[in-house]
C-alpha cells in the first residue's frame, strides 16, 4: 500500500494552480511580517522575553506547499490540528488573520484573548487547533472525526505533525485507533528533515514514515520535492477516502524548514545551511506556473500586493489592539464558578 507519488495531478485548473500560489504567498508574507516584528525590538542582543512578540517563535516558511495543497480540499466544517509550527496551516484553513495576529502579539483582540499564544490557537470557526507538545495534537483529530462520524456529517479531521513527532507514542496509538474505527481522519507528516537539531536519520529507523502505514492497514504515501501539486493530489485521494467512510490515510510530505527551528536558532548543526534558500518552494512554483504560461508579472504583483494588504491589516490591527487587562488573568480558567 506504500507508494511514492511525485507525479503532478493532471486535472488542476489554472485558477486552482494560481490559488495554490496565492495561498503560499499569503502565508509567506505573514511569516515574513512576524519575523520582522519579532526581531524588531529584541536587540541589543536578543532577549526572547522582550518585545512586541515575546516567547518562542516557530515559523513555517518553506512549508507552504503542505498547507496550500492540503487545505485546498478542506471545508470550514472540517477540523485541522497542528503543532508548535501552526501558522501556515491556520492561514490556509481560513483563520481570521486579525485574530491570528492578535494572538501572536498577545492582545485582547487575539483568538484566545492573549491567553494562548502562537502555539495554542483554538478556533471554533475553522475547527482549527494546535498543541505545543509534540505528537499530542494527533488525538484531538480522532475525537473531532468521531464527533463528525456520529453526527453523520461528511466532515473529516486532519492531523498534521512533523517527522519528529512520528516517533512519539501518540502517533502509533492514533493511527491504530483511527484505522480500527475507520475514522474520517488524514494524518499528514511534514518531513522537513529536522526535529530541532536532530536529523531524521538520527531519529527515525526507516527512510519514510509512509511505510509505517501498512502496520495499521491504511494507505501510506510519501510526497517528494515539497511539491504543492503533488500534495494536492495525494491529499485529494485521502479526502475522498475519508469522506466516503473508508477510513484514514497517512501522507508524508518531504518539505523544507527554510529558517531556524525557532527564531534565534543559529542552526550551527545544519550542514546544508548555505544551500537552503535555493530550495525555497515559492520561487520554484512561480517559475513552474510562468513556464506553464499561467502566471504573468501582473498576476504575481497582484497576489503580492493582495497578500501585503491582508497581512499589514492584520498586523496593524494587532498592534493597535489593547493588551489584556492583568486584573483578568484568571478569567477563563473555568466556564462555571470561580476557581478554587
Amino acid at each position, binding site marked *: 500500500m506504500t507508494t511514492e507519488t511525485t507525479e503532478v495531478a493532471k486535472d488542476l485548473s489554472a485558477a486552482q494552480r494560481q490559488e495554490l500560489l496565492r495561498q503560499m504567498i499569503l502565508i509567506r508574507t505573514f511569516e515574513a511580517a512576524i519575523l520582522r516584528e519579532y526581531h524588531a525590538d529584541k536587540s541589543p542582543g536578543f532577549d526572547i522575553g522582550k518585545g512586541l512578540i515575546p516567547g518562542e517563535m516557530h515559523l513555517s516558511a518553506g512549508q507552504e506547499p503542505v498547507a496550500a495543497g492540503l487545505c485546498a480540499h478542506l471545508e470550514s466544517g472540517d477540523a485541522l490540528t497542528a503543532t508548535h509550527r501552526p501558522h501556515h496551516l491556520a492561514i490556509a484553513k481560513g483563520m481570521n488573520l486579525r485574530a491570528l495576529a492578535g494572538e501572536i502579539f498577545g492582545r485582547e483582540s487575539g483568538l484566545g484573548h492573549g491567553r*494562548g499564544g502562537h502555539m495554542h490557537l483554538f478556533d471554533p470557526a475553522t475547527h482549527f487547533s494546535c498543541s505545543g507538545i509534540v505528537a*499530542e495534537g494527533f488525538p484531538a483529530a480522532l475525537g473531532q472525526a*468521531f464527533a463528525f462520524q456520529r453526527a453523520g456529517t461528511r466532515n473529516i479531521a486532519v492531523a498534521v505533525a512533523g517527522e519528529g513527532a512520528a516517533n512519539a507514542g501518540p502517533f502509533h496509538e492514533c493511527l491504530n485507533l483511527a484505522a480500527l474505527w475507520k475514522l474520517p481522519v488524514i494524518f499528514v507528516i511534514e518531513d522537513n528533515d529536522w526535529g530541532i537539531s536532530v536529523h531524521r536519520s538520527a531519529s527515525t529507523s526507516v527512510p519514510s514514515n509512509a511505510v509505517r502505514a501498512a502496520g495499521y492497514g491504511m494507505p501510506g504515501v510519501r510526497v517528494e520535492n515539497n511539491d504543492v501539486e503533488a500534495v494536492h493530489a495525494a491529499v485529494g485521494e485521502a479526502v475522498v477516502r475519508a469522506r466516503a467512510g473508508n477510513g484514514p490515510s497517512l501522507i508524508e510530505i518531504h518539505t523544507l524548514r527554510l529558517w531556524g527551528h525557532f527564531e534565534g536558532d543559529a542552526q550551527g548543526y545544519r550542514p546544508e545551511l548555505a544551500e537552503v534558500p535555493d530550495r525555497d518552494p515559492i520561487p520554484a512554483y512561480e517559475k513552474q506556473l510562468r513556464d506553464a504560461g499561467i502566471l504573468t508579472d501582473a498576476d504575481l504583483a497582484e497576489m503580492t500586493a493582495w497578500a501585503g494588504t491582508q497581512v499589514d491589516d492584520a498586523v496593524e490591527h494587532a498592534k493597535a489592539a489593547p493588551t489584556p487587562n492583568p486584573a483578568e488573568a484568571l478569567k477563563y480558567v473555568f466556564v462555571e*464558578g470561580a476557581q478554587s
Partner: protein
Amino acid sequence: MSISTSAAAAAQMSLPVEPDAGSRRLNTAKALQEAIGSQMEKDPSVFVMGEDVAAYGGIFSSTTGLLERFGPERIIDTPISETAFIGLGIGAAVEGMRPIVELMFVDFFGVCMDQIYNHMAKIHYESGGNVRVPMVLMTAVGGGYSDGAQHSQTLWGTFAHLPGMKVVVPSNPYDAKGLMTAAIQSDDPVVYMFHKGVMGLAWMAKNKRSIGAVPEEDYVVPIGKAKVVREGTDVSIVTLSLSVHHSLDVAEKLEEEGINVEVLDLRSLVPLDREAVIATAAKTGRVIVVDEDYQSFGLSGEIAATITEHDPALLKHFSRVCVPDVPIPYAHELEYAVLPTAARIEAAVRKAATA
C-alpha cells in the same frame, strides 16, 4: 468546535440540589451507573469510552448494564491506548459531545497525563473561553487489597494541583450519583475519582456505608461543596472518600468516651470548599487531615495553608494521617501500616483531643 449552548446548564439548574435521600438503597456502583444511564437517556451527546467498559461493565462496575441499554455505539471499548482515547474524548467534547472517559486505574495517569493536564484542562483557558471541554474523566482510586505500588494509589493531590480541571471524590452512593450528574452536566472538564472500596463490590471488603439511600430522580450534588457528615466540637477531621468511613467509625467509637469529633467530607477538591474547612477549624481549633494520598505536597498541606493563611490563631493543633511518602507496599501487613486506618486515626484524635 462549538460552544454548547447551555441546554445542559439549564437542565442542571432545574434539577434538585441535594434532595432528601428517601428510602431506596443502592450501592455506590449502582448509583453511579444510574447517574450515567439517566443522563445518557436525556442527552444523546453523552457516551462512555474506556477499557473494558462494555461487555465487562467496567473493572470496578462503573458501567455495568450500560452496554445492554445503550449499545456499542455509545458504550465503547477501546484498545490500551489511553493517550489516544482520552484525547479522542477531548476532541469530541470540543465538538460539543459530552464524553465520559474511564481511565481504569488512576495509577495509569502517567501514560496519558499530557492529554489530561496540558489539553483537557487548558484548552478553555488558552482559547480565551471560546472552546469548552465538557468531559468527565472517571477513574478508580485507592488501595487496601494488596494490589501493589502501581495499582493502589489515590493521587488526587496530583490532579488537584494542576489547574483547569475540577476534581470530585464521592464517598457514598448519594454523592456518587449527584456528583456524577453534576459532572456530566458541567461545561468544564471534571475528574471523577471513585474509590474501589466505596463501590460496594461483591468481591471486595465492603464498608457498611457503601450501600445507602439514593433518590430515584435526577439531582445534583454541587461541585465544590463539602459536607459536615458529623457535627462535633472537640476535634475536626477533614477527609474524603473511603477515609470518611474510617473517620466516622472512629468518631462513633470515641463519642462513647466523650470525645466529640466533627467530620468534614470534602467531596470536591477543585474547587475546594475553603469556607467549610475554615469553619470547622474555627469551631474546634484541632484539625486532623485524613488522606489516603501521599502525605507531602498534597491535600493535607493545602488544608493547613488554607487555615493558616486565613488566621493562624485558629489552630491549636494540626496533624495528618496520610500515606507516608512511600510506594504502596504489596504485603498486607506493610500496606496496612501505611494506609490511614481507623487505628491510626483514633490515635491521632486522642492525641489532638489532649493537645
